[in-house]
């Protein structure tokens, strides 16, 4: 069974749009400053929130049971007002610690609590939703640089813009695997 390392990118969509404005730059994303997002890593693999340089401690895994890093993104409203989705995750080609990331879309039944009695498990319901994530297999210890390109849409699904988080004047962010 694969070991899964969850990484969640949180993006302040309202602030991004206020500061950088909308754009139609698909394939040419606007680079955001570091105040407009951050990444959270699951506790078992390092935990904490780096601004963008990540350190993950995870087992190497095997071909039969690889260790996979799954990257997701959402806005601070949990995608209610604006939605944020990773359009492209680029791992530096020369990195030997991570395989190239691939996009995955899988449906699953999301549990929902009852509004009146949220603590009551008998009133849980489910709704089919799509889990959109990018996945990369850990190959070895090492450090890779990466780029996360996101797309922000409004609540009607209209694209507001394409942005790149984590990059800065000092260079690309890195992920260190140990």
């Amino acid at each position, binding site marked *: 069974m694969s070991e899964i390392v969850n990484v969640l990118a949180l993006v302040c969509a309202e602030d991004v749009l206020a500061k950088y404005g909308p754009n139609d730059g698909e394939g040419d994303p606007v680079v955001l400053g570091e105040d407009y997002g951050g990444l959270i890593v699951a506790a078992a693999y390092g935990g904490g929130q780096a601004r963008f340089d990540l350190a993950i401690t995870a087992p190497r895994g095997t071909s039969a049971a690889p260790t996979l890093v799954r990257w997701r993104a959402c806005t*601070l409203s949990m995608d209610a007002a604006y939605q944020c989705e990773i359009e492209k995750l680029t791992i530096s080609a020369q990195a030997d610690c991570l395989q190239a990331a691939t996009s995955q879309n899988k449906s699953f039944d999301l549990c929902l609590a009852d509004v009146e009695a949220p603590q009551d498990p008998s009133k849980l319901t489910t709704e089919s939703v799509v889990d959109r994530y990018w996945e990369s297999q850990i190959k070895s210890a090492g450090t890779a640089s990466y780029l996360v390109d996101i797309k922000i849409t409004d609540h009607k699904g209209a694209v507001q813009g394409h942005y790149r988080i984590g990059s800065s004047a000092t260079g690309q962010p890195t992920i260190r695997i140990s």
Partner: protein
Amino acid sequence: MSIINISVVVDANYVVQHYGTNNAWQSPPAFYHENIYLTVRGSAAVQQNASGWLVMQAKEEGETDVDILRWRMQEISLGADSQCFITKFNIQAGASLITAPKQRRLGSGANSRPDCLWESTVLTRGHVQYNLEFMVVNRQGHVQGYYTYDPAIEISQ
């Protein structure tokens, strides 16, 4: 009125592994503020954004643009591995500073996921200490446990 979205991200695996499974919905065990992340937009954050101990600024009632606070809890996998729900708010100190948080479910957003949130209005500035009780369910919808957590919000000008 302006809305301040407070994102509460929980690592459910960590919570269940470190605090155990339980069915104690009436008296959930206390969960300390490691590996829980309260995040607001950068312009509303004063200190320790994306930590368990958020200090934020908000406009109070009577000002031109009073703030509404909206808490949403999400598991780090966005519900794919497990899910977390806020089940109760208990204001311990500063109850007069914000209205009692109420749960609401708004229409689906662009991604079609229902929007479940707890909402409160800022009445005046000051220190609000509260217990936030939450439930963790696994992917199959089975309850893993109930936990309580005591964050605070410093509402400043």
